[in-house]
């Protein structure tokens, strides 16, 4: 267990709902759930979740901290917003799912091999560097996420599309070195750093 995770366990003891309300984005909505189940039924990937949103909300109230935060469930969310649209109590369910995933990551107890989580990390690392998404590197990193041999296979499979994108100017080989950035890259990085400090202070308190 990480220090920060241990700290949170100490701080909230058995009140996981309180911990979620205080630390998870939109977490204070969790108690509003009336367990009707319309979110779970409306989720296009619902059958692939270990615990659909409705169940996660009940687990939070039941204090099942490890089961919730180490779950792969909220990482399955594709942000289609069907649940938010249909929720009779207007809970921002999509945001809560991302909030839970993010909080688990902050604590360092997220499911490490979950592919959505891995992609999200790749995307963030890519974006945080220059303030712009470098699509070429993002693609390359994604292809080789599961090892070199597999990466070559995927890359060859996608070659046709890649060449087409090159031809139509949707992809530039110049991106391989450096890549395009925001105008004020230093300012951008300072901003991210400050935001991370603020976030860390918020969690640590």
């Amino acid at each position, binding site marked *: 267990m990480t220090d920060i995770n241990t700290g949170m366990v100490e701080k909230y003891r058995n009140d996981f709902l309180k911990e979620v309300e205080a630390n998870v984005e939109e977490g204070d909505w969790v108690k509003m759930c009336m367990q009707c*189940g319309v979110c779970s*039924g409306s989720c296009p990937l619902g*059958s692939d979740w270990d615990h659909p949103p409705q169940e996660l909300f009940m687990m939070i109230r039941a204090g099942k901290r490890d089961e919730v935060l180490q779950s792969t469930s909220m990482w399955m969310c594709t942000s289609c917003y069907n649940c938010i649209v249909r929720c009779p109590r207007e809970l921002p369910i999509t945001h809560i799912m991302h909030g839970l995933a993010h909080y688990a990551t902050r604590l360092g107890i997220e499911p490490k091999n979950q592919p959505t989580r891995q992609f999200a990390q790749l995307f963030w690392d890519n974006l945080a560097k220059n303030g712009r998404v470098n699509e070429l590197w993002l693609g390359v990193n994604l292809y080789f996420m599961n090892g070199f041999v597999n990466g070559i296979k995927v890359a060859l499979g996608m070659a046709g599309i890649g060449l087409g994108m090159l031809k139509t100017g949707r992809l530039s080989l110049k991106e391989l070195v450096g890549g395009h950035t925001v105008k004020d890259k230093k300012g951008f990085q300072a901003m991210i750093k400050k935001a991370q400090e603020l976030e860390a202070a918020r969690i640590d308190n």
Partner: protein
Amino acid sequence: MSDIVATNQTILVVGGGISGMTAALEAAEVGKQVIVIEKTPSVGGRVTKLYKYFPKLCFPTCGLEINQRRMAANKNITVLTMAEVTDLQGEAGNYTATVKISPRYVNSNCTACGACGDAVEAEFDNEHNYNMDKHKGAYLAHDMAMPKRYVLEPGMIGTDDAQKAKDACKFDAIDLDMQEETLELKAGAVIWATGWRPFDAAKIQPYGYDRIDNVITSVEFERLMDPKGPTGGKLVRPSDGKEAKNVAFIQCAGSRDRNYLKHCSRICCMASLKQSTYVSEKFGDDANVSIYYIDIRAIDRFDNFYQKVQDDKNVTFIKSKVANIVENKENGNPTLKGVDTEGYHRYETEHDLVVLAIGMEPSVDKNTFPIEIKVNDEGFIEQDEANGGVFAAGCSSDALDVNRAVQSATASALRAIQVINKVAQAEG
């Protein structure tokens, strides 16, 4: 219509449903002068469209007949049908209402013999059966219509059919030149009893009411049981007339949902429990009823009824708000999809017929009241001093079942009587 006497000691009752009738009777039977304004061609309102009442499962026609006889026998009550209040001015003890009366094209000579209805050919949507069938252009709203007098659809006027109806009448009751009239009526107090309407089910997009034939509302299901209803009393589904033995009820269709109606409509749980007995009544042990619910709100004495239905082995309760419905194109069955709360099992279940236990909303849009009136967020009238001598009765004040609507109507009659008594005292 010049024979209507209205003074500032008159109580004006707007709406002639069960609440309006009750309020009018309670006031008239203690000697107050009452005028009932009813928008449709006959009084009785939505109660006339019910097959049975819960929890006793008796027929509403019984109580309706008693009330109609009380009304007919009471000379203090004047009923104006096809009439609407378009404006209301003044204050408690001194109101002037503007009332628009639409032409019925049939005068009081009518004996309801039905010759005009037989003579005409044109057909119109039958509002009494929620437009599930048609009625003739000259019609009686239903068997218990009061006043028992035919009506001509406005769309008939100027057609040959209208002339046929006139020619068929032996009593000179049809007057094709009848015009809209506007009256000004004095009143000391007003009882507002305009009732409710079912929430528009088509707005609940995932349930496909507008796309799937075999998804109907609870009010429509109620009409299927009426021997004079659109199916002649047969419990069959709309798409192919197949007997609907496997019926699903979806609770909170529109109610308790911030996307639709925020409030709990109160009647829908009991309505579905009641309607589950209809399926058993028709098909005995072949009946297979599923009730999808968030929680069943069968309060106080209704709990006995709930327990009785729970004991019925042909009725299954599924704790889940159905997420969406798709149609099986091969057999027309609606397929219900969702996840149940007791175990989080994902289901995809087909039924012959799906009934949406539809919510209740006030029949008058809160922005179109002819008078300044305090309403809550849902559009129901608040009991507020700012409303002066206007008192809400029944479902214009809240989502209520018949029993509670009648209680509310009696209370509003008493409030109106107090205003009238003050006026009478002041005038000596």
